[in-house]
């Protein structure tokens, strides 16, 4: 029951990543297309532009959501691959715990950075 629930969240996170990563790719890496349509900036990864974007509420929130969903989706998928090694139950518990801790710490650190820059 619990496992399938985690898997449902894995799929939902995948769908959210699809949308947010799509936005990310368009703004940061396919900028020429957007710019030719008259939207966005000519040099989206210039430090000044990056900094200005970080001060927008919309971007702060989407960064945090993308960070959370990508971390969950990637780490849970990675855990699944490791579980197929059928290690001893102790090692499995350790791996799950370790990956969860990594996820939480990275999420906390990333969120702190996003909020910090936004407030500055």
């Amino acid at each position, binding site marked *: 029951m619990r496992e*399938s629930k*985690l898997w*449902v969240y894995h799929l939902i996170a995948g769908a959210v990543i699809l949308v947010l990563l799509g936005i990310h790719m368009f703004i940061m890496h396919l900028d020429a297309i957007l710019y030719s349509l008259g939207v966005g900036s000519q040099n989206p990864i210039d430090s000044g532009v990056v900094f200005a974007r970080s001060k927008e509420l919309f971007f702060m929130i989407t960064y945090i959501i993308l960070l959370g969903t990508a971390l969950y989706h990637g780490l849970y998928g990675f855990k699944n691959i490791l579980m197929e090694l059928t290690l001893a139950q102790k090692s499995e518990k350790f791996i799950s715990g370790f990956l969860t801790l990594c996820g939480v710490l990275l999420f906390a650190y990333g969120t702190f950075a996003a909020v910090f820059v936004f407030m500055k």
Partner: protein
Amino acid sequence: MNENNSTKNTTTVIFEILRYNPETGEKPKMQEYNVQVYKGMTVLDGLNWIKENLDPSLVWRSSCRMGVCGSCGMFINGYPRLACNNQILKISNKKLQIKPLPNFDIIRDLVPDLEGFFQKHKSVKPYLIRKDIQEQNLPTGEYFQSPDELTNYIQFAYCIKCGLCLSACPTVATDERFTGPQALAQAWRYNSDSRDEGSDERIKAVHDEIGASRCHFAGACSDVCPKGVDPSFAIQLLKQDFFLKTLKLRKDEKETHVIPTAKKYVPNPKIPEAPKPTVKK
């Protein structure tokens, strides 16, 4: 079987068979037999011929010899198949390599240990579960089911528990605890039966850490299934159902009602009465 030798139109096929007897302490080894094969002869016929004419010590499991009992699953030329359901010459006219099904322990020669497999099957509660226990134990009628509702699950009910799907599954190969395609398909067979109300009771067995979410849809089970059960499709439906119910996008099934059986049965006068039983109870 001895007419086999006298038949003119035969081809010699080498049967290379895995031999293993745990009582001798020897490692499994391959042994070759030359078999005169005639058109239409099945792998099971070949094994029977070897046992009768060349080597009575060869051991395998079979019963119905017509693809319904599910006991003769073997790994034949690198593919899990039923021995009784496959003609030798359609596989090869030179050599057949026969091993017990992969992903199972070997009991002896070609006999896999299916104990864990049946445990998995039982774990998903493969029977109708009803909330009206009183009615189920002392039925006053029949549970209604329309032909459409029957087609929802009939394909999955064709499973003969041969274990071929588990022997082909890459997830079972890496983790033998995985509930596996056969049992999960049976869980869906009952969940999707309009008369059943047991999905909640099956959730624990079906959606735990060795359950449906471990399936990555390789589809090998559906490839090898001799009855067209398509277990990987059943698992996808099981996952979809869980997904939609978790997100509250699918309602629980409506209840199936009991239809009373006709009160008095009037026999057709044209049909003579059955003879009295010859054996007393």
